[in-house]
């Protein structure tokens, strides 16, 4: 039947239909997302991605989530303070090896 054309079949799996369903699992999107948040993406990559998330709630949410996790790590991880005697002890050791 003419209605089952290749084009029609393809249309079922185009990004657009995935976007409509809110389940864009395009590996390329995820790759770009990681590169962007790690500051490793090209200008072009960024453009492509930000254009895409305007219409894809799945990737938009993924971006928000990944961003919030990075922020959480950066701002809330416990910080240890360097033991007060460490620098002096290193310097002493160096002096003694120089003898």
């Amino acid at each position, binding site marked *: 039947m003419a209605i089952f054309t290749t084009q029609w079949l393809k249309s079922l799996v185009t990004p657009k239909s995935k976007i409509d369903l809110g389940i864009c699992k395009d590996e390329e999107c995820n790759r770009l997302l990681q590169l962007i948040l790690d500051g490793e993406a090209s200008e072009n990559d960024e453009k492509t991605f930000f254009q895409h998330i305007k219409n894809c709630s799945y990737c938009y949410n993924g971006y*928000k*989530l*990944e961003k*919030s*996790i990075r922020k959480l790590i950066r701002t809330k*991880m416990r910080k*240890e303070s360097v033991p007060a005697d*460490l620098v002096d002890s*290193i310097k002493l050791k160096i002096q003694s*090896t120089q003898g």
Partner: protein
Amino acid sequence: MAEQNKPTYTEEKKAKIFEKEFLPHIDSMYNFAYRITFDEDDAKDLVQETYLKAFRFIDSFQEGTNAKAWLFRILKNSFINDFRKKSKEPAKVDYQEVETFYNSDEVDETITSDLRVEAVQEMIGDEVSNALNALAVDFRTVIILCDLEGFTYEEMAKILDIPIGTVRSRLHRARNLLKEKLRSYAVSMGYK
């Protein structure tokens, strides 16, 4: 460590480089050491050893290049070569094998859980620290280097002696594992 055009510094110059380029990173170094050893004394030893080596091999350091990455590389090597052997930590999973598996194309990416931004924003330091600490040391390391210390993929590749592609895939795997841990916390907090 580049061997070509090795500079030979005067004693005075060495002291200056050590003071101005190496010591300012002690805070990051100690925190990194602590996060991979979980022990104050071990972290101190590791940092001390790193700085002594850095001084001993200071002629391999090109002034004005990335001292922080250079120091982290020494620390990581000390950890692997000397420290891990001595430590009482139980044997690790064969992580290389795990990585090879996840680098293969056949892996079905089951990425996102139902972790939500609001739940992440509610989390406190202890929860995120515990989640990160629960990861295997190699996974923990890439997240620390990337997210906390801000190293680029290229710098991480040099610090860890692995190709950039491996940095990327290890990081990707580490982030997914971390996300899973955070999701468990979110669930226990009553978020869904």
